[in-house]
């Protein structure tokens, strides 16, 4: 028991039990207990008493079809279609960027992660701008304006637009994960295959694909899990025609104050995700051991020549990047300089919302961005929060990943991995509410964190763990055990081995995980809205306030600031990561 890994594992288990399992336990208890608000449901309800009512209503009552089963089918359909689309797009783009000699990679690389940077509702709004159906009134959409006919209903609302926009929003997951895995492929493996007489397709099928398989699996879980939990997109593009998913149903129940019903649906969603992570863990355990690609021998990565296809593929990728990454930002930018929103015309342009001082005739006297104290304070808070959370989440994530991969036979390690994934499918607003109670008063050695910035960091880190652990597993799986064994023989302690071998070799995976967390925390709203105080205000909560007041331009400006900050943050992380990788390669050769 003096093994440091086991000690770390036990400590992490205890911490996560308090931060994840305990709130989850409360959530489940809630679904079996009449609550304060239950008299909304039945006048006989006694708060605190046990009841089967919610579960019966949701799974077997007369409304179960509309409440659970119909939405469940919609959730599965959109989840599966969008996951497939996202994997195809992310996977092939990752291959083009990392393994081929396609030109312009340096520019395309950051552009391809842009769709994830924008809040998901921005993609939905952009879709609506183009495919808006005339029946919602107002100005016609671009499609109708250009083609002269209204778009068909299935293109405006429902399965098709939801699946496509979800795929656009989440394919960067697959792209980053697969790119991280592809970067570790040793060209010597491919060359050996070539010498043995394998064709290009065979190499792709027999070498490249199996090596990136764990990354694909991680991408499938993250994308599928995230799409089934996503609320904004299905709501904006589904609700106009009464198309519901489980997530929009959760939201509907919360909006009506029927919280316990919402929690039942949430528990069902969490169960679905646990099932998928269990399946994937089995898969990774069975397959991945065979593909340690970073070994103790030399490492070389060489690009594959595309030949005549080079420029064609470049054009396709660039066009794709432009449409999904740049165009929505342009649309947002244009809308932030319009005096009257939605009204195109040169005379309607204004810089007021960016550099204007308070003017009572515009936006109720709200000053432009650079004079706006609220926005400036929120910007600083946002940066602090996103940076700290991303760093903590990735470091803890890689440690958990290491334990999960290296101790895969230990049931406690498997448990740790699974616990770390649970926050993923908490309805975020419920998660926030639980933390409000959990840290309102001191418990043992834990001080009261109510209203502090620390609490925001804590919940953000926990909510990002599912991502950082998944990216960590992808990275650690590929590091051969022999490297560590050699160091161990040479007398290096576990801490030293972890710092000097695992961390540097997994750094590209950690970096992409950090980027994903950095972006995710920046865009988070409902998770922290209950925990925020005016002193800890962040950009999204400020933007939410403006949206409520109908100040579309300022909201768009804020979304744009979030996007710009994220892009710069990402570039910095990417630069650091690139530098480290380069140094590493130098050392190896």
């Amino acid at each position, binding site marked *: 028991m003096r093994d440091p890994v086991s000690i770390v594992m036990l400590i992490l288990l205890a911490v996560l039990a308090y931060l994840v399992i305990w709130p989850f336990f409360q959530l489940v208890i809630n679904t079996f207990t009449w609550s304060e608000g239950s008299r909304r449901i039945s006048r006989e309800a006694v708060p605190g008493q046990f009841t089967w009512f919610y579960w019966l209503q949701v799974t077997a009552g007369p409304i179960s079809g509309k409440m659970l089963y119909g939405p469940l089918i919609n959730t599965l359909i959109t989840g599966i279609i969008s996951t497939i689309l996202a994997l195809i797009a992310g996977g092939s783009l990752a291959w083009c960027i990392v393994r081929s000699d396609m030109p312009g990679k340096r520019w395309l690389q950051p552009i391809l992660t842009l769709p994830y940077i924008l809040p998901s509702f921005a993609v939905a709004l952009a879709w609506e701008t183009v495919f808006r159906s005339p029946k919602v009134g107002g100005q016609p959409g671009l499609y109708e304006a250009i083609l002269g006919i209204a778009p068909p209903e299935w293109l405006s609302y429902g399965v098709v637009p939801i699946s496509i926009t979800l795929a656009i929003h989440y394919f960067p997951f697959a792209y980053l994960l697969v790119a991280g895995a592809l970067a570790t492929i040793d060209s010597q493996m491919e060359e050996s295959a070539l010498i043995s007489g394998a064709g290009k397709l065979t190499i792709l099928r027999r070498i490249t694909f199996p090596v990136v398989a764990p990354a694909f699996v991680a991408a499938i879980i993250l994308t599928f899990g995230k799409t089934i939990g996503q609320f904004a997109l299905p709501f904006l593009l589904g609700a106009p025609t009464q198309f519901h998913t489980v997530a929009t149903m959760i*939201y509907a129940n919360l909006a009506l104050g029927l919280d316990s019903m919402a929690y039942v649906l949430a528990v069902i969603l969490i169960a679905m995700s646990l099932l998928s992570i269990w399946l994937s863990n089995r898969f990774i355990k069975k397959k991945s051991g065979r593909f340690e690609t970073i070994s103790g021998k030399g490492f070389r990565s060489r690009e594959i020549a595309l030949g005549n296809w080079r420029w064609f593929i470049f054009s396709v990728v660039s066009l794709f990047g432009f449409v999904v990454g740049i165009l929505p930002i342009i649309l947002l930018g244009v809308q932030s300089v319009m005096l009257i929103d939605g009204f195109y015309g040169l005379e309607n342009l204004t810089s007021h919302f960016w550099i204007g001082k308070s003017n009572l005739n515009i936006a109720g006297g709200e000053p432009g961005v650079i004079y706006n104290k609220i926005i400036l304070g929120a910007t600083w808070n946002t940066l602090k929060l996103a940076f700290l959370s991303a760093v903590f989440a990735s470091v803890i994530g890689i440690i958990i990943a290491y334990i999960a991969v290296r101790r895969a036979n230990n049931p406690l390690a498997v448990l740790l991995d699974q616990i770390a994934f649970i926050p993923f499918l908490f309805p975020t607003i419920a998660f926030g509410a639980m933390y409000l109670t959990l840290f309102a008063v001191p418990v043992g050695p834990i001080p009261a964190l109510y209203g502090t910035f620390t609490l925001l960091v804590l919940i953000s880190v926990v909510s990002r763990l599912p991502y950082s652990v998944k990216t960590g597993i992808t990275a650690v799986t590929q590091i051969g055990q022999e490297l560590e064994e050699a160091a161990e023989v040479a007398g290096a302690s576990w801490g030293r081995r972890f710092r000097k071998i695992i961390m540097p070799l997994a750094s590209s995976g950690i970096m992409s995980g950090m980027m994903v967390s950095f972006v995710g925390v920046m865009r988070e709203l409902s998770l922290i809205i209950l925990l925020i105080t005016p002193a800890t205000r962040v950009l999204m909560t400020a933007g939410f306030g403006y949206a409520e007041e109908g100040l579309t331009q300022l909201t768009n400006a804020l979304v744009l600031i979030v996007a710009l900050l994220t892009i710069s943050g990402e570039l910095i992380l990417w630069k650091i990561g690139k530098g480290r990788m380069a140094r590493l390669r130098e050392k190896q050769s």
Partner: protein
Amino acid sequence: MKQLNKFKALTAICTIALASASFVQADEAWQREAGVGKYTPETQDWAAIESAAREEGTVTIYSVSSRIAKLVDKFKERYGIEIIGHDIASDLQLEKLRRENNAGVYTVDVLFNSESSILLNEALPANLVWNFIPDSVSDELTESEMTPLLIQRHSSRIVYYNTVLNPNGAPINSIWDMTRKEWSGRTLLPSPLEDSLSANFIQTILANPEDMAAAYQREFGEPIIYSKAVIKAVESIATIDKPDASMEWLYRFLQNDPVFQGSTTKIFKNVGDIAQENPPIGITTFSKLRKNKKGVYAAGPIYDLDPVFGVTYPTALMIADMAPHPNAAKLLIRYMMEEGFSPWNEPGDYSARASVEANQVKEFGLPSFNDLSLWPVDAEEIYYSKFSFLALYLALS
């Protein structure tokens, strides 16, 4: 299950033991100190309140409207007291307050909240909030604007049409017109499953079936016959006994492809945009009237809609239980009823104070609040029929 029960019992014992001992006494002491509930003094000594409030220095408010930020500077200038304004939705305010109170964390002083169903049926009976009426405005308020809680203003959800593209007046005159074929896919509203005020609108219609039946008779000249789907839905839901005209309206309305949109501002603009051919009608917030702009947006209320112009709901001001700054809370509440009302002085929102409302009627050229045929939300009805409503809504959609 045994273990669960044990756990529950244990928690219950702990809670009771802790609560009954110290908590109740502390709360009692606070009530006396703050002068609320049964300790409300006969007269209000504003000089004493003001000096005590200056001593307290800050006041924290959970506000349903972000416009609270506009009061910060002026209030500080006048009283030297800092307003800490949290912009939180009505239902979340009460969730937050309840959890904080249970944990013994007391930070908030004032609530500015429009979710009357939870306020009156949960928060007030549980003594989570306390009513306070500044005597300076009490003679301008009706009884229902002072009890059970102080009302600051009345907002409404109403039906808008495009005035420029319908020069001869509103294209519909009855709420039953929305169920006609020519209005298929042409009524905009926030989804009742996302927006609790939209749910309140529909629930209030459901609470007035007789008026809806009479309006049906006037519109179609015959008594109403219920659809099979409505009868079937009623049979499947234990909490509903018999079909009525409101349910029939809801069924026909939902079958007529209403278009749900998230933003009330957007609904107003999509109705009012003059650069379209076939404008829809929209159910949205009355006070969006200020967004009209010559040559761009022209939307007007359908005042004489049969049987009702719209649904009105109050926004209330109150003191939070165990508020750490009770005097500053009182001062802020009075201020928001007086000159601090200005951020909410808008056409379509009516001040509860008679004199302010008279000025609003003059300034905006609108009918007075009492002349509008509005159904007020029934806090109790809305609260207790929430689940029946969801079941019915899902069954009929």
